[in-house]
C-alpha cells in the first residue's frame, strides 16, 4: 500500500481496479492547513487523463505489471495480434494501445508485452529495428538544393528524413525511441 506522502510524478496506482500513472503532481499545503496532493493521472489502458486531489489519510494499491516476451504476428481491423512462442497463447492490442509503435513493427518481430492482472495493456519494442526502404528519390550527386537529407518511406508506411545516399530497396536501422535514422544496413 502507498499512502499520500508516497505520491509523486511517475508513480503507478490503482483507481477502481484500473492502473493509472501520475503525470502531473503538486503537493500543496497552506502553512496551518491540510496537505493536498493534487494529481493528474493517466489511465494506462484507455489513455484517458483524470484529475484527483487526495488528502493525507488516503492510501492506494500499487500497480503490479508483468512483462512477457512475445512475437508480433499480424494486424487486422486495427487489432494487433501477438503470440507467446512457448505456449502459443495469443493476445491482442488495439490501435490506441499500440500508439506510434506500428511505425516500426514488421511481422514476427520480438516485443515485450506489458500485462496488468492478465490483461495486455502496452508493449515495448526493441530499441533498434531494421526496416526496408520502399520509396526514395534517387540521389543526384552535387545536388545542393535538397541539402544533407531527403525523405524516404519505409515498408511500414513510416516516413522520415535520411542521408541522401540511402536508396530504394535498401535497409536502414531506426531507433524506435526517437523514430530517427541510425545507420545503413550493409547487405
Amino acid at each position, binding site marked *: 500500500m502507498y499512502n499520500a506522502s508516497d505520491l509523486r510524478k511517475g508513480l503507478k496506482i490503482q483507481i477502481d481496479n484500473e492502473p493509472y500513472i501520475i503525470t502531473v503532481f*503538486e503537493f500543496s*499545503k497552506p502553512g496551518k492547513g491540510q496537505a*493536498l496532493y493534487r494529481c493528474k493521472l493517466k489511465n494506462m489502458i484507455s489513455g484517458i487523463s483524470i484529475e484527483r486531489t487526495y488528502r493525507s489519510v488516503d492510501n492506494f494499491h500499487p500497480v503490479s505489471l508483468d512483462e512477457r516476451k512475445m512475437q508480433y504476428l499480424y494486424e487486422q481491423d486495427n487489432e494487433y495480434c501477438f503470440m507467446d512462442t512457448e505456449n502459443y497463447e495469443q493476445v491482442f492490442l488495439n490501435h490506441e494501445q499500440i500508439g506510434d509503435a506500428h511505425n516500426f513493427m514488421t511481422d514476427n518481430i520480438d516485443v515485450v508485452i506489458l500485462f496488468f492482472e492478465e490483461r495486455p495493456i502496452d508493449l515495448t519494442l526493441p530499441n533498434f529495428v531494421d526496416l526496408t526502404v520502399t520509396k526514395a528519390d534517387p540521389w543526384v550527386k552535387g545536388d545542393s538544393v535538397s541539402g544533407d537529407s531527403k525523405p524516404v518511406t519505409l515498408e511500414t508506411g513510416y516516413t522520415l528524413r535520411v542521408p541522401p545516399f540511402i536508396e530504394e530497396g535498401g535497409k536502414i536501422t531506426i531507433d524506435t525511441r526517437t523514430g530517427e535514422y541510425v545507420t545503413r544496413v550493409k547487405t
Partner: protein
Amino acid sequence: MSHESRHNQDQYPVRLRKEQLWLRANLIQAIRAFFIDRQYLEVETPSLIAAPAPESHIDSIEAGNLYLQSSPELLMKQLVAAGYNKIFQICRCFRKNERGRLHLPEFTMLEWYHAGIDYKALMEECEDLLFTLAKALGKEQKIHYQGQTIDLERPWERISVRQAFARYSSITPEKAITEDCFDQIMVTMIEPHMGITKPTFLYDYPAPLGSLARLKPGENDLAERFELYMAGIELANGFSELVDPEEQEKRFKKDREERTRSGKINYPMPEKFLLALKDMPDTAGIALGVDRLIMILGNRGLIDDVVCFTPDELQENSRS
C-alpha cells in the same frame, strides 16, 4: 525507464546553484542588519523541544524522547513573557512529510515578536523589512518572478479572507469550513490571485482557524491573523498573539481532539507555555519562510534550487 523528476520541472544541479546560495547568504546578513538596527535581540531557542504546539495539520519529527521543532513559536513567546520585548530568530524548522515545489521537511524560518503592537502594525513592519531587504540585495523595487512583476511600493494590497472568498469563490469562508473544503478553495481559487502585482496581506481569518491569534475585539467570529503572499506563494503568517491562557488551552484541546479523530498521534501538552502566557503582554508575532523569499528574490520556481542539498539528494542507494 526514463528519468523521472520529483516535480513537474527539473531542479538545477547543486553546482549551478551558486547565485542562489550567495543570495541566501547575503539575505541572511541583511535580515540580521534590519533587526539589529531596530534594536531587536537575536535569540536561539532549542531545536529539540518537549512539547510542539498542538496543530491539527502539522506533524513533528521525533528525536529520542523529544521532538525537532516545527516552529520556535512557543519558546519565543515564553521569552516575550519573561520580558524580552523585541526578539528575532533565524532557525531550522522540521515538519514531517511536507515535500513539494514549495516545501521541504527541513527549512529555514525567520520569526520575530514585537511587544506592544498589533497585527496591523506588524504588517507595516513586514513591508519595511522586505522593502529594505530587496534594496540591500541590489534588487529593483519591481521584482520579476516567473513572468510576473511584483511592485514592492508601499502600501501593499490588503484583503480580508471574507472579501477574498467573495471575490474569487462562490462560497463563504464559514460555509467552506463546515463543508471541509476551506483549504482546497484557498489553494485552488484564492492563493493564485494573491500577491500578483503587489504583495498581498490576506487578513482576518474565521475564528476556528485562529490558531494562536487573538480574536478581533468586537468581532468575535474573526481572529487577528494574516498571511503574506507574493506571486501566489504563502510567505509569512502573523498574529496579534493570543495571551489568554484559558482560551489558548481550549484551542489546543480542540486541535488535539481533531488530531485524534484523523488518526494522528498527540504530543505532550505545552503546560509551561500555557503557564507563561499569563505574563505575556499584548504582542504581535510572525513567521516567514526564508527559502521561499530566496525563491522569489532569485526568480526560481523550485525550493530545491535555493538550498545546498535536498532530501532526495541525501538519499544513498537511490533506486534508478
